[in-house]
Each structure stands twice: as C-alpha cells, then as structure tokens.
C-alpha cells in the first residue's frame, strides 16, 4: 500500500472530515434544480475511522473492502489496490407535492428530493474516497431503504470500495474527483482489458405522475383491444427525461459512452400512479485512442447443467 507521491491536486489542508473539492457537488444537468450545498451537512463522525487505514510513521495501515475474494483478486489483476470500504448516507424527509388526478406531469419537488438525497449520499462517499487519496470507487451500490419512520422518510445510501492505481498514475476524472462506477470487480477488469476507463457513475431520475383515465375513456375502451395512449405517452416521456438527464451527466464528464445502464421503475411509497424512473450507468472513455486490441475470448461448452 504505497500511498506516497500522489499526483492528484488534493489540498493537504489538515483533517477536515469532508474532503470535498472546492468545486462542490456534481454540476447539475440542464434543468434548474436547486441543490443544497453538500459540505455543511456532513455528520461530525464521518470519516473518523479512515485515519486508521492510512500508512503513517509508526502505524501500518490496511485496507477494508466489501469486495469478494474473486473481485479483490481481479482488481489487483487490473493494477489497482483497494484502500477502504467507503460509504455515504443520508436519512431524508421527502416533501409533499399535490398531483392533479387527470394530468400527467413530472413532480418536480419529488424529483428534486430524489436527486438531492442521492447526491448527499454519493458526495459523502466521494469525500471519504478523496480523503483516502483514491483514484476511484468500484462496485458502487446506491440504495433507498424505507423503515419504520413512515412513508415520507427514507435512508439513501451509497457504498463502494475505494481503489488506487499501483502504477501511481492518476485515474481521477476531469473534475479531479475519484471516478465512481457501479461495475463489479469482474466487469471492471473486463472493461480495463478493452482499453476503457470508467469516469463516473451517472444517473438521471424523474418522478412522474401518470394521469388517471376519465370515465368516458374507460367506458369507450371497455372490452376493446386498444392501446391506451395517455399511459403509453406518459411512460415514454418520463423515461426519456430520466435517460436524457443521465446522458447529460455523462456528457459533462466527457464520456464516450455509458455501460451497464439499468432503468428502474419504482413507486416507492407514493401509490399507483406516481413512479420514479431512475436510470443509472457507468460513463466510460476510451483511454487507448482505439489502439487497444481485445483478446479473442475462447469459446467453451460447459458440461454442467
């Protein structure tokens, strides 16, 4: 674990638990969503444990990681060493927005809540990784959990393993922050074989209210084989909004593509007609200018099962 001579531009300004870069949170996508600043709200206990992980004179550091043995070995194989299991979380109270029964619309206040709370969690995780001097965070998971606090309060959590390149090159993205990626250790190794590097976990979300149908419409379609255009259209629009926002984030990072995109549709606690569309993926760039040749995989037939 040689954490000496880091090439990054991180300011060595003491023990501040929030290793947040001065540029603040991620630049938002095109929309005018007002984000709360991240630095202030960081709980005082955050990052207390990280000091123990680092090598100091008279103290031998070590790493912690939630990577499986396979993933750990593959990360090593890709030329990285794990530094620490990093986390960020926020318990967040989601506001109320009235919905019109018969109108399909984005619920801006709820969208904002989902963005804000996830960014709080993500940025706190980033801050821990930055403090460890990491080049990136792999195996990121982003979860929303509801417990017995009621339907408007949720825990947003981001988890991952901070890693550092063993060749001492900086793999930070162009914002000077550690890259984040939800790729598993296996996917990360495979991605690196193809000459690509991850730049950041990008996401787009949209909370959308889908209009109920009026009585007349319901009667007209009873017993018929017909498409329900207002439902179809609403789903399309919400999905487009989420995907576009994700792509905007990737463009800001200067990505050449997004891999491993997942689109999740969840109603959380809002009832039937209100759905969050969340798209998540890892923005990547080709680091080899297309020079890289991908090894031809061997084809096998497995005889089990």
């Amino acid at each position: 674990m040689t954490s000496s001579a880091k090439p990054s531009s991180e300011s060595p300004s003491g023990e501040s638990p929030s290793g947040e870069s001065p540029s603040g949170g991620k630049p938002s996508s095109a929309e005018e969503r007002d984000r709360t600043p991240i630095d202030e709200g960081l709980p005082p206990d955050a990052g207390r444990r990280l000091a123990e992980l680092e090598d100091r004179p008279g103290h031998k550091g070590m790493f912690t990681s939630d990577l499986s043995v396979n993933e750990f070995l593959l990360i090593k194989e890709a030329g990285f060493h794990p530094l620490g299991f990093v986390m960020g979380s926020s318990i967040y109270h989601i506001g109320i927005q009235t919905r019109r029964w018969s109108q399909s619309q984005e619920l801006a206040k709820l969208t904002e809540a989902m963005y804000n709370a996830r960014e709080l969690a993500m940025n706190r995780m980033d801050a821990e990784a930055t403090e460890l001097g990491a080049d990136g965070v792999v195996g990121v998971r982003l979860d929303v959990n509801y417990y017995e606090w009621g339907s408007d309060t949720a825990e947003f959590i981001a988890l991952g393993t901070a890693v550092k390149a063993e060749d001492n090159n900086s793999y930070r993205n162009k914002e000077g922050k550690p890259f984040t990626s939800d790729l598993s250790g296996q996917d990360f190794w495979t991605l690196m074989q193809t000459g690509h590097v991850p730049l950041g976990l990008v996401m787009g979300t949209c909370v959308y209210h889908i209009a109920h149908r009026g009585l007349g419409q319901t009667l007209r379609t009873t017993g018929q084989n017909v498409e329900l255009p207002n439902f179809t259209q609403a789903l399309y629009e919400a999905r487009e909004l989420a995907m576009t926002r994700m792509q905007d984030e990737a463009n800001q990072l200067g990505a050449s593509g997004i891999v491993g995109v997942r689109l999740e549709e969840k109603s959380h606690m809002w009832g039937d007609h209100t759905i969050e569309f969340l798209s998540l993926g890892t923005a990547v760039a080709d680091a080899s200018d297309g020079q890289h040749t991908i090894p031809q995989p061997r084809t096998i037939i497995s005889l089990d099962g």
Partner: protein
Amino acid sequence: MDAKKAVDALSAPPRPTATHHNPAGTTSDLSVDEVLLLHSIGWEPADMVFGVAWWSVPWGSWQWRTGEIVEASNAFAGAMEEAAGQLRAECARAGGSGVVGVKVDLRVRAQHIDVSLTGTAIRRTGKKPTGFEFISDLSARDFAVLTRSGWTPLGLATGASFVIAPRRTAKQWAAQQGQNVELPHLTEALYQAREGAMARMQQAGISMHAQGIVDVKMDEGPMGAGGRVMQFVAVGTAVKLAASEHQMIRPEMVVTLNDPVVLFEAASVRGG
C-alpha cells in the same frame, strides 16, 4: 457442585466425532469441488465445528438515553469472542488448523445478543496437527483462490455499534413537514454507529497484523423504538500477504456456448 458440572459441560460439550481421531471419515458441509480445491492447495476437511454464545444486555439499557448503547456493543463483542473461542477449541479437538466457510448468525434482542458460528475445520494433508491458524467466513473455494495468489486469512474481524438518536423537538418536527430536508438527528446517529462499528472491525484487523479485510458484510439500519435505534454490524475476514509478493492469477476470457435454459411455463399462457 451441579452448577459447576453444568458449566463444565457447557464449556466442553461432548462431541462423538471429535473424541476419536478418524482420518478416513470426516464430516463437512463442503461440496465435492471444494474438497478437490482444498486438496489442490494441500488442505483437507476435518470436521464441522460450532460455537454459540448468548450475552445478556442489562434491563433499561435501551431506554431514556441517547448516544451509543455501550452495553449492547460490549455484549456483541463478548458473544462474538466467546463463540469464536468455542469454534477454535472444537477445531483444535478435531485436529484442524483453520475453519473456513463460517456462517455468522446474529440476533439482537432487547435483553440479549446471541451469536452462533458454524464452519468446517480443515487441516493440512498428511501432516501432524500444525496448530490453530485462522477462522474465516470465506468459502473453501475463496480460501483456495486466495492461498494460490499468495494471501492467507488471519481471522474474523467484526465490529458492532448501537446508537440511539435524540428525539426531534416539536418545532423541528413542524419545520420539516412537507419539506425536502435531510433529518440530521437520524443521519448523525447512523454515522456514529457506522464509524464505531467499522473502527472496531479495523482495530480487530490491526491487532491481527492484517494487511486488509476482505468481503466485508454489513447490516445497518434502524431497529425498533420507532426507528431511533441505529445498528451497524460489520463482519469480514482479515488477510495478510504470506508470499513475498502478490501472485497474479491471469484469468482467461471465455464465452460459454451453452444457451440459457428457458423454462416454459404453461400456466403463464393460460393466464393461470
């Protein structure tokens, strides 16, 4: 006198398989390929081993206070250590040098915390007992791969912390209604529990002279009391580089030509 006998029986429960050393017959919950893998690195299963410990948490520990419930955190640490001690003793009796595939069952109740550990004791093939080396929750397969790349497990590293968040004042509560806001009292309690538990796990690793802790599993979130008690439990295996340097495993890419098996369910077509 009877009480002493009972306590003695508890600390050394009679084990039919462990009392006589039988190299031909071993009990293990390992699969055939895991046994083969173990043999490939010079190990073999010895016996299944168990450890159980219940520790009480004093009455009233969870009431009328905020901050960490030190009694509960200590009960966890004590129960874990005692259960691991039993596992180690059983392993020694079975002639094993290490325990792999340890399953950790933890229950936290208001009055007690219990830990039960189940694993398979393994020993080096064809050698006299080499003494106790490690307990690990890694599977036998993981142990084999890790050993081949030059690393060795040292032991289970665990940590837990239980923290009660303060109540909100009526004014705070009112100000948060209908708003998009973070709830700092809960978030901070969660952070306190997390930092406490992770720091204890790291301390355990450092005291074993580990270079890292892999496969950390964590359980976190509120438990009872209206969601104001935050628990955080972390369990992992401390590891150390035993060889002079990390051995690359050089994986090879393969594409399997097997088609995914698609099960056709008639019921789904019938609408049943």
